[in-house]
């Protein structure tokens, strides 16, 4: 019985990640459109796009190797796996034994790595350019991400995400976040924007060759491969949003397996993710994309913030 529930939970979590990710992408686009006084495409447009792409016949350049066709599957699989490792609406996600927060970071990095390889594989100029830029961003973002996650892990005394979330969800009466958490949150937010190719770092809505990063790597893809890549990007965004809302605002997450708690957990989770997506949409509308040479400054700031988070963890006992 217990194991059936566990399997069921994993299935629900998987379904939620797969189903929700295009919606989040659509929501952000809608918010941006509204802020630009456009009506914008419908909230469910990304689903239609994906469905269309899956139906199309892929065209593959003859210069590519096996990496080109394998990469979309690897990227997709690693991202989904990362999503399954972390608590989404239940604080003790059934698969949490399979890895901790560091495994999550490196599953995502694996996806990025193959994305970069795929960008290089076709041998086009844009793909290589996009890959090299992505590599810069990824290398700079990773230390900041690791440090900020470490600061959180230190507070909880564990690197297991479920334990971290569970503990903070059970903590009562915490009105004020400790400074260390705030810094880590700010750092992680910047990293999120960078890793998921959002505006101050990359612009997901443009194919202008001078500025694009993520889109440049996908230029050679078409059909179901492109669909997988786009979908994986959406899931990655959702994974980051989930990480932020559940680690820094775990209120309402189900701490037991009671059906009512789980129902509340799902609803609260949806609301929080939607809220954060709106925030990202607003930020994307407020800021202009940074010049590529300024990106290291932004990520440097994220690194400093996460460093401060660590310092404050050790020094500010409140």
């Amino acid at each position, binding site marked *: 019985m217990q194991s059936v529930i566990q399997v069921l939970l994993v299935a629900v979590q998987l379904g939620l990640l797969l189903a929700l990710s295009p919606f989040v992408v659509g929501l952000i686009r809608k918010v941006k459109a509204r802020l630009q006084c456009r009506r914008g495409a419908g909230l469910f447009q990304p689903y239609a796009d994906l469905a269309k792409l899956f139906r199309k016949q892929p065209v593959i350049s003859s210069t590519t190797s096996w990496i080109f066709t394998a990469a979309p599957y690897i990227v997709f699989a690693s991202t989904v796996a990362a999503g399954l490792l972390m608590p989404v609406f239940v604080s003790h996600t059934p698969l949490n034994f399979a890895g901790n927060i560091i495994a999550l970071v490196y599953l995502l990095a694996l996806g990025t790595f193959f994305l970069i390889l795929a960008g290089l594989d076709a041998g086009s100029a844009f793909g290589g350019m996009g890959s090299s830029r992505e590599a810069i961003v990824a290398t700079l973002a990773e230390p900041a991400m690791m440090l900020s996650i470490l600061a959180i892990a230190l507070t909880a005394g564990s690197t297991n995400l479920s334990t971290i979330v569970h503990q903070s969800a059970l903590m009562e009466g915490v*009105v*004020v*976040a*400790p*400074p260390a958490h*705030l*810094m880590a949150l700010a750092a992680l937010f910047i990293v999120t924007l960078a890793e998921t190719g959002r505006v101050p770092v990359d612009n997901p809505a443009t194919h202008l060759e001078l500025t694009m990063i993520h889109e440049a790597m996908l230029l050679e893809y078409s059909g179901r491969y492109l669909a997988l890549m786009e979908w994986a990007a959406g899931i990655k965004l959702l994974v980051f949003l989930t990480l932020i809302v559940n680690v820094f605002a775990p209120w309402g997450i189900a701490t037991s397996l009671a059906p009512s708690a789980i129902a509340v957990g799902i609803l609260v989770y949806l609301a929080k993710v939607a809220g954060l997506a709106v925030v990202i949409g607003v930020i994307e509308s407020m800021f202009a994309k940074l010049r590529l040479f300024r990106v*290291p*400054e932004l990520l*440097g*700031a994220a*690194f*400093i*913030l996460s*460093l*401060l988070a660590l*310092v*404050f963890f050790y*020094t*500010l*006992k*409140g």
Partner: protein
Amino acid sequence: MPVSTHLGSQLVDLCSVLLLLCCFAIVAQRRLSACVDLFALQSAFLAATAALVAFLTGHRHIYFAAALTVVIKVIVLPRILRKVIERLNVSRELGMNVNIPAGLLICGALVIVAFFITQPIIPLGYLLTRDSLAIALAIILIGFFTMIARQKAITQMVGFLVMENGVFLGATAAAYGMPLIVELGVFFDVLVAGLIVGIYTHRLQDAFDSVDTSTLTVLKE
């Protein structure tokens, strides 16, 4: 009020950290007017911290200092500096002695240094505010660094004012504020210093066609 002290000290910590964040933002900021705005924001956080401490401890005279901070450092001084920027028609800092990522890293190191230096004296402080002393020293050091790293007269002044904010935070944190007469005197001095810098930038502009202090190299060995 044990619960309230714990919560209070968390709030005070939070406010001080926000002050420190403003410092980092100033270090990372190229636009002069944004630097001035960030300084005003920092001063607002400082006033909030002071008011919070006043509220939690019942020391009335800190309210007074907080009010003065709002008037002088949030309103008057930023206004003077903005006027200067407008009149001089400079908006950006192009040449810096230390580039921004390196500057941020140095400031991160300065924070750690500040925590180290104050470590032996922290336990003596009031429970409510003692952590802020380390942050205050960090702010002083970062302000000092800003003055070294930047070349524009305005940003150097902002660095000085940031140092002053740090000292004020230190005074509030360490001893619940200085004697009132001293605080008044310090505010007066800071205000006059702001006015003098305003006059100076004007004259430097006339004499050197620049407010870049790196052009001040007539006098040397």
